[in-house]
């Protein structure tokens, strides 16, 4: 989901249609903008994917913000320089560290499985997908929430530490479950150590795929899958030599070159409506 700054105060009080016991209205009082968007995205995903009756108690949470806390830190630095040590808020560290979003999601959903933050800057999307799928597979969890957040565009905050006008808070939540327990039509596959067959992807497309894998690009890949009403569709994101992720929608044809066509990628809508993503068999 994408939220303009003007909608943020209301979302902070009511981040979504909460399951069970309502959250206290002060729950997100000190949270970062990205935390608000991330938790709201999780609630939206629960409802969009029909997961209201799912018990998340033993799930894991892996959250990858991008430059979490830049606006708050800008304000805190100025205050520190004028007021000294006593001017530093005790909320700064708990709510602007890499693990802050995963901890908040864990608390909100009463999730007792592992929670941790991933990445934090460029490259965070690939990092969190690798970490979450490995945890899901090896630590035998019933599911993992992957939460990605950023400010878009990433701009300099103002002197008071507010994000610049026109900035949107973006939150994207993926519910990963093992393929053996899910019938979702979208599957996520991580391949490491096996180079992709060069003949399947044109060189210029390969370069395009490899660069700039960020949250908006993942949104676009998911949008592409959702726009396909029939047929097997596989979109591939190369990460580095020998590593890639694949998003597969079950149906008919299977084409790497479908996603390798630059014109097709440029036409993608930047907005994604999320469904459930399932880890494919290795």
């Amino acid at each position, binding site marked *: 989901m994408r939220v303009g700054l003007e909608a943020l105060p209301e979302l902070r009080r009511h981040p979504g249609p909460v399951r069970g016991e309502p959250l206290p209205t002060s729950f997100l009082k000190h949270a970062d903008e990205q935390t608000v968007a991330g938790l709201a995205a999780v609630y939206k995903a629960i409802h969009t994917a029909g997961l209201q009756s799912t018990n998340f108690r033993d799930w894991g949470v892996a959250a990858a913000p991008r430059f979490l806390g830049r606006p708050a*830190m800008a304000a805190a630095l100025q205050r520190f320089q004028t007021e000294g040590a006593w001017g530093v808020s005790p909320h700064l560290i708990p709510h602007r560290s890499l693990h802050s979003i995963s901890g908040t999601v864990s608390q909100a959903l009463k999730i007792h499985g592992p929670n941790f933050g991933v990445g*934090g800057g460029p490259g965070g999307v690939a990092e969190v997908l690798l970490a979450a799928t*490995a945890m899901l597979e090896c630590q035998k969890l019933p599911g993992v929430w992957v939460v990605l957040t950023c400010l878009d565009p990433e701009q300099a905050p103002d002197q008071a530490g507010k994000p610049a006008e026109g900035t949107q808070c973006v939150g994207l939540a993926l519910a990963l479950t093992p393929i053996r327990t899910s019938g979702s039509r979208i599957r996520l596959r991580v391949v490491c150590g096996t180079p992709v067959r060069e003949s399947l992807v044109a060189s210029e497309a390969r370069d395009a795929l490899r660069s700039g894998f960020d949250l908006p690009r993942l949104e676009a890949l998911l949008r592409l899958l959702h726009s396909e009403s029939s047929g097997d569709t596989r979109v591939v994101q190369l990460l580095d030599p020998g590593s890639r992720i694949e998003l597969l929608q079950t149906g008919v044809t299977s084409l790497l070159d479908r996603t390798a066509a630059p014109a097709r990628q440029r036409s993608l809508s930047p907005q994604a409506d999320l469904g459930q993503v399932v880890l494919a068999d290795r």
Partner: protein
Amino acid sequence: MSHPSAVWITGVGTATPLGNTYADFGNHLLAGRSGVDRVQRFDVSEHPSQIAGQLGEVPCPDEVDTEEFARLHRLEQLMRWCCMGALRDSGWWERRREVRIGLALGVGAEWLEVWEADALAGGRRVWQPELDVESMIGRTRRVLGLTGPVVSVSAACASGNVALAQARNWLELGWVDVCLAGACDMAVTPMALAGFGNLRALSRRNAEPQAASRPFDRQRDGFVMGDGGAVFVLESAGSARRRGARAYAEVAGYGARSDAFNMVIPSPDPEPAMAAVREALDDAGCNPGDVDYINAHATSTPVGDIAEARVLRAVFGAAVERVPISSTKSMTGHLLTAAAAVEALACLVAMERSALPPTINLHEPDPECNLCHVANEARPAKVRVAMSNSFGFGGSNTCLVLKAV
């Protein structure tokens, strides 16, 4: 004998307030030396807590240009030192391009630390997002010429255990042949010292720095921050045997559960932490009675140490009376993101030297922390199985079990 797919530690790189090599760290740890002192790097006259376990200058590794190294942020210097040291120690440094080496590191607040250091030096980087184009872990991978995947993780003070678990996962999945894993932190900065101080989490025993970190002692009044890191080389037992590599230990068990209670305050319900410990022991195929040494999380806070003691009593039952336990934070300070990694290192020292590191400053044990303490002086003991607890903000509870090989 370990199964060929078991994951072994075959290399170590470190820098801590107790020394910048594994040998120095071990010597000072077993001598019961405190690495805590008054903060020297910046003015602390207005900080509520004015003490920390500090690193001096991070040593520049051989083959690295000293001027280039000096331009790096201290956290990145530390990463570079630890990663290169671990690769050299393992024997992989010269052959690092022949295999797929991954990198999983606990790094909790990279960008906050970068922006703060820049601002205090007169810069405006927090207002210049166009400058933030590459993460430290990505650059470390590129500069070292590694070809495996990378991930930076944070579960606050439990990050090192999470990183080790990730590396073990990647090895099991065959995503990497070898993996660097551990954690680094340079959190002793003016703003972080102030932030934790204003949170009232830190000791204010400023007049007696070496006596300030006193886990399980009745007079404890908060934790003492510290800088440092430890990075390990992990590979399969089969790979290590084929190379004839030195093996420090097997990464045998891991458990992780969340409180889902509060971002800062530990849950009054011990069940999530108990579940993490049980999960780690099950994963390692151990019973509580098999454990020869527990490295406690115990940070020296009034609430946290009691909570951990309750967890251990519940999981270990009668065995808690005879399983030796210590908190090495009494000597290093609390290294936050790096704490779990450095405490895993302390377990390796205990195994290798057949000696239990002590909890120093433990003169009046809190009766609510009634455990089998290794108080004030190291004690000889054979250690085959060591367990290390690490808990963190965000409600993370983790436990690591290491076995001698």
